[in-house]
């Protein structure tokens, strides 16, 4: 299995897009750190730090694209046959791709957190104390970490859907668009969602609610009453939906003719 994960990572590392997007992410973080330094009223340094200097949306977009292409590029380049007709089972091939994307997501979060800490140390040494309380018994730093963990989880909810769609359509455009629509959908339909939830309590268990988990942590006290959800329920809901979508994708992949 680790051989397969290494092979997937090797392909990722050799792609130019990997390095271009990494530099782009670093560039954006540095840019927003400077903006927060120069215009602290518009870009409040504490909030900017919590949001990892605007890197989470970039990570989300890029990971949606990377997930779609790790599957569809094999169909596009005709390499899926070669990847499959080896001793490894189909399941192992798919799981190795999940793991590679998991490690990739992890790498991006570690990288962006590292850069955020570095920017804080360089530009806000005396202006921002990230260990000061920020409500709910959390400091700015720990809340930043909690939001990261939550957005990691709900990003994976989207990615599990993207994996499924990429397998069904073999086409990255379709999978990426649905992923990105999914990303925006949660924010667009929040109002509609809260109306539904006020009327029927069970409606809160749909997957779109789960993608609001990071927003819930970023705005304490705002979403809980609207969605009628606790943090741990959101967390569990995400995990369950991820498992369901990955499992359907696994089933489809095992059945298909290549």
């Amino acid at each position: 299995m680790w051989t397969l994960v290494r092979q997937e990572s090797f392909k990722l590392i050799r792609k130019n897009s990997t390095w271009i997007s990494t530099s782009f992410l670093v560039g954006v973080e540095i840019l927003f750190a400077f903006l927060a330094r120069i215009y602290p009223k518009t870009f409040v340094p504490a909030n900017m730090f919590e949001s990892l200097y605007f890197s989470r949306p970039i990570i989300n977009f890029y990971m949606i694209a990377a997930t779609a292409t790790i599957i569809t590029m094999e169909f596009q380049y005709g390499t899926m046959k070669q990847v499959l007709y080896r001793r490894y089972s189909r399941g192992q091939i798919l799981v190795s791709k999940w793991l590679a994307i998991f490690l990739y997501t992890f790498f991006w979060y570690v990288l962006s957190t590292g850069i955020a800490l570095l920017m804080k140390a360089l530009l806000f040494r005396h202006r921002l104390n990230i260990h000061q309380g920020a409500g709910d018994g959390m400091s700015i730093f720990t809340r930043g970490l909690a939001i990261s963990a939550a957005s990691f989880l709900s990003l994976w909810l989207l990615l599990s859907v993207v994996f499924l769609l990429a397998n069904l359509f073999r086409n990255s455009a379709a999978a990426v668009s649905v992923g990105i629509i999914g990303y925006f959908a949660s924010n667009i339909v929040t109002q509609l969602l809260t109306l539904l939830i006020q009327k029927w309590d069970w409606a809160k268990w749909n997957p779109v609610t789960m993608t609001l988990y990071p927003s819930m942590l970023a705005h304490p006290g705002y979403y809980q009453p609207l969605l009628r959800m606790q943090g741990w329920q959101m967390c569990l809901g995400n995990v369950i939906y991820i498992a369901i979508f990955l499992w359907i994708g696994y089933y489809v992949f095992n059945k298909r003719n290549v």
Partner: protein
Amino acid sequence: MSSILSVQNLNKNFGNKHVLHDVSFDLTPGHIVGLVGPNGAGKSTLMKTMLGLFNYDSGSIKIAGEKVTPQKHESLSKVGALIEYPGIYPFLTGWDHLQLFADGDHQLIHIQKIISQLNMDSFIKRKAKGYSLGMKQKLGIALALVNFPDLVILDEPMNGLDPEATKELRDLIISESLKGTTFLISSHILSELQRLAQDLLIIDEGRIVQQTTMHDLLASQGKQTIMLMTSDDKKARQLLKKAKFKTTPDPRVEVVATDDHTMPEVLHLLVEGGVDILDVTRLEGNLESSLLEVLKQSRIKKRLAEEEAE
């Protein structure tokens, strides 16, 4: 010992289209086996199914005694393959590809050997984005051979290769087969296959029409033809006609040999008739005409069987 590849009563449908009908065969270890048949006969489908790329409806596929299904196929560790066209990542170099698909650590020397045998040194370190058709094809073949396979499955391997590369590939296949590797090769370039394959599987409309050796097929179908160059072709033809030998409509003087006595009898007749013989050649039966004959016969048989059934 179990055979390297054994297929029994394999059936495969695409929706309601029945593409493989009760296909059964075994490969002799160490042989080069040609898989031939018209376009759409099911050659690629058969190969893909054997490699676990397609589901199948009934029957069994065993490689070295182990069952192959799309879900599970550990025995494919013994198999190398190139199906239809090579899958190539444009952002990797040829060398990267070979390393990516090579199992184990002792492969570097082996990779290097394949590269030089196929004459790929000049481009192997370049990104595959810029490869020509033949370069890609060579890389695909190298990938099929990289893990010391016992069985190699090649679908149209000569596609896009120039004469020099075709010869390199032929030499490589022969040398690997002498070391014990079994090959299953489909190709429409019959002259090339005739030089390579020892055994033949003929497939038409999803059925194995005949499994035979190249020698038997050519001997049974290829009417042995004797071609003569004489001092007086016109007279030679007249003499042969009078003696009731079977000739061909060819402008050259050609006699169809019915048995081993034909040749001496022809020579006697002409020498005694005062015609000088400048050269004699025996024309081998060729794969193309033999194959067409087999396919024709099998289609006639099938039609008769269908009419009887009605």
